[in-house]
């Protein structure tokens, strides 16, 4: 398969003449994306480690002397009470915040334009992003659960149906967060302003979605706003994984609302996909 005109070096013999496959390039992209992600100190501290750090701080401050929280007869350690919110936050940061910022920066720095000048298919670029997000958030959640279980004595669920819930909330949440991140990446005007634009959105959502505070303690109008957005449903879904059913009375609806959770996350995934496809561009806006 080697071209007659080309000197036959080893790497050329190994390559076929046809254009490399999209799936293969997606994996190649994911590897480079992951490498760059974990070398970027900002990403590691403010996205990858953030939920772990927050969990450690909250659990340490509020959980002093083994303090527990919850309804009578069903209390849990403070760390366990905070864990679902931090898991949901981790999913949102690793998908939405990470992609919205990095794609905005890549666009501003000319990285996307460079890729557009190569035969890399757009699908492979996005596959690489998906791969990077899935691997990074899986590692992040593994670390978060390990810290919760080993350092803060959180009893992790053992029932398979709870882990099944964990899996689909994680996957749907990641899917919605990723496509919305791609769409939102077109909002910041420059790469430099990207974190300044994206971070407050995430922070506000965290506060109104019951990530830090009991959701049922929030004013009703705030609950109504939050229930439009996916983070509230991710947090609720994760509460159904990590909190005992004795916590059910503290849910506003009185139930975990799994079908509604799946529906809202799926709708956001579709909306994000449509928005992302329509707004995505390889070059800066000012490039005409």
């Amino acid at each position, binding site marked *: 398969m080697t*071209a007659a005109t*080309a000197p036959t*070096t*080893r*790497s*050329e013999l190994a*390559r*076929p*003449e*046809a*254009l*490399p496959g999209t799936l293969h*390039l997606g994996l*190649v992209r994911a590897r*480079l994306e992951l*490498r*760059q992600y974990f*070398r*970027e100190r900002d990403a590691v501290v403010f996205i990858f480690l953030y939920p772990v750090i927050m969990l450690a701080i909250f659990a340490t401050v509020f959980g002093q002397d083994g303090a527990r929280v919850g309804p009578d007869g069903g209390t849990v350690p403070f760390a366990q009470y905070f864990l679902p919110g931090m898991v949901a936050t981790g999913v949102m940061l690793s998908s939405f915040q990470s992609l919205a910022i990095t794609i905005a920066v*890549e666009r501003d*720095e*000319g*990285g996307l*334009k*460079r890729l*557009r*000048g*190569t*035969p*890399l*298919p757009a699908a492979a670029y996005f596959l690489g992003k998906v791969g990077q997000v899935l691997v990074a958030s899986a590692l992040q959640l593994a670390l978060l659960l390990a810290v919760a279980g080993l350092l803060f004595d959180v009893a992790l669920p053992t029932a398979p149906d709870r882990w099944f819930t964990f899996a689909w909330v994680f996957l749907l949440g990641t899917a919605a967060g990723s496509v919305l991140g791609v769409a939102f990446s077109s909002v910041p005007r420059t790469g430099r302003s990207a974190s300044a634009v994206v971070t407050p959105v995430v922070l506000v959502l965290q506060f109104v979605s019951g990530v830090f505070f009991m959701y049922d303690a929030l004013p009703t109008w705030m609950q109504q706003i939050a229930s439009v957005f996916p983070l509230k449903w991710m947090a609720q879904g994760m509460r159904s994984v990590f909190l005992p059913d004795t916590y059910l009375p503290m849910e506003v609806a009185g139930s975990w609302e799994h079908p509604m959770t799946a529906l809202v996350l799926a709708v956001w995934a579709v909306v994000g996909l449509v928005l992302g496809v329509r707004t995505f561009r*390889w*070059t800066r806006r000012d490039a*005409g």
Partner: protein
Amino acid sequence: MTPTDLALEARGLRKRYGDKQAVDGLDLAVHRGEIFSVLGPNGAGKTTTVEILEGYRERDGGEVRVLGEDPQTAGREWRSRIGVVLQDTRDLAEANVGELVRHFAAYYPRPHDPEHVIDLVGLRDKVRTRVRQLSGGQRRRLDVALGIVGRPELLFLDEPTTGFDPEARRSFWDLVRDLRDQGTTILLTTHYLDEAEQLADRVAVVQDGRVVALDRPSELGGRAARLAVVRWVEDGVPREIRTDEPTRTVVELAGRWADARGSAAPLEVPGLQVLHPSLEDVYLALIGVETSVAPVVPTLQGSTR
């Protein structure tokens, strides 16, 4: 010249932004295997033109063929045959040189050996260095490496030597000539007139969205623009003559100078200079830039040639 000898052809190219006609009926034909340079002031439409040729922008009118295809509709196979080195990229800071060259090679069906390309651009001792730690010139050489690793038939170079020290520029020019000698067609956009003069087989000057001059660098502007200037000082007043026979002019001047002063031997003429226009002088004259030294075109400066 048959159409297949052309790597790139544009006819009557038009592009408008708002009420500004950025490209206004531009014609261009680049032969296979040549280094073709596009010059022009900022806002002349050269970036828009090149980006249309690269497939980044859609044209409003005109015909374009790049490697036999219309860039607007061409697919991956076409993109695997071109190489694009953009200006002003600051991406990929956290990856290192070796990773990136190997990574980009994977996009192409028939890439060069990445290790060979790293040697070629002179980044062997930086192969494990992260992009953020490279100097400006080293970054540019990496950009070039990523642009050529796919073995392009046609390479677009946009301001490739910005930030280079003189030595790095020389070795970069050698690299570009080597690529040409191996059959790569190169479209070079540059602000450095000496670079175009050194590298280009042909030069097009673009102004107001059109090609206003097209020739070999040594012929650009025609004979009138190429006249030498002989200067001297007489009675404390600077004088000059434009001529295509400067040697004869100098001899006549020397004879007249000696005769007028009753000397049999030649006398030194004060401030005697013979100036030949550089490509830069011709270019500046073509785009209508005047200087205080010589109000008539072409403007002249320096006599190092």
